[in-house]
């Protein structure tokens, strides 16, 4: 039986895996100075698979368990992660502007790294905020 706790844990794991994949893509892109350190479609497809699996598990858990897992505590964590990820995404512009002029990071590499870092910021912040309230 799928409980709300199992659904929350599964969601946290899928967000962490997708976020870490995005982060790995950005770090490898910068280290290798290339826009495609591994196939470019992997982070996006992984995100879609994660969403599909979370939706499927929520459907299997039933309405009451899904409501418990996606309650107002979840919304608070989601909004907090969105707000902080927004500022991180904005800060990437001056940081990468500096990197492009000083370390000669090419625009395609910066584009790939910034895109995946933006996704990683939200996903990993949500994972962290969701985890710390469970102690």
């Amino acid at each position, binding site marked *: 039986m799928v409980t*709300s*706790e199992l659904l*929350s844990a599964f969601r946290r794991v899928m967000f962490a895996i997708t976020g870490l994949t995005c982060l790995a893509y950005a770090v490898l892109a910068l280290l290798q100075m290339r826009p495609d350190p591994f196939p470019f479609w992997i982070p996006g497809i992984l995100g879609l698979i994660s969403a599909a699996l979370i939706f499927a598990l929520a459907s299997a858990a039933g309405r*009451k368990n899904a*409501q*418990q*897992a996606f*309650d*107002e*505590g*979840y919304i*608070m964590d989601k909004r907090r992660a969105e707000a902080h990820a927004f500022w991180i995404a904005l800060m990437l512009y001056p940081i990468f502007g500096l990197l492009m002029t000083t370390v000669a990071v090419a625009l395609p590499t910066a584009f790939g790294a910034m895109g995946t870092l933006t996704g990683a910021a939200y996903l990993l912040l949500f994972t962290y905020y*969701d985890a710390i*309230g*469970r*102690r």
Partner: protein
Amino acid sequence: MKLIVHVTEIRKAKGLTQADLAKLANVSRKTINTIENNVFVPSTILALTLAKVLDVSVHELFELPDTDSH
């Protein structure tokens, strides 16, 4: 302003675990935990729901601290 929360005492007096209360209020155990630890201030609807399932008034669950007024 920090809210004074009495959910833990009242929940324990009723013999309920956080998981039991979460199920009755239709929220996650984490939400109950964060409310009890004063990390999360619940919505009016959730505060009223908690009061209803614990069979107390909202004022018994939550109170504002006394502030000095001149």
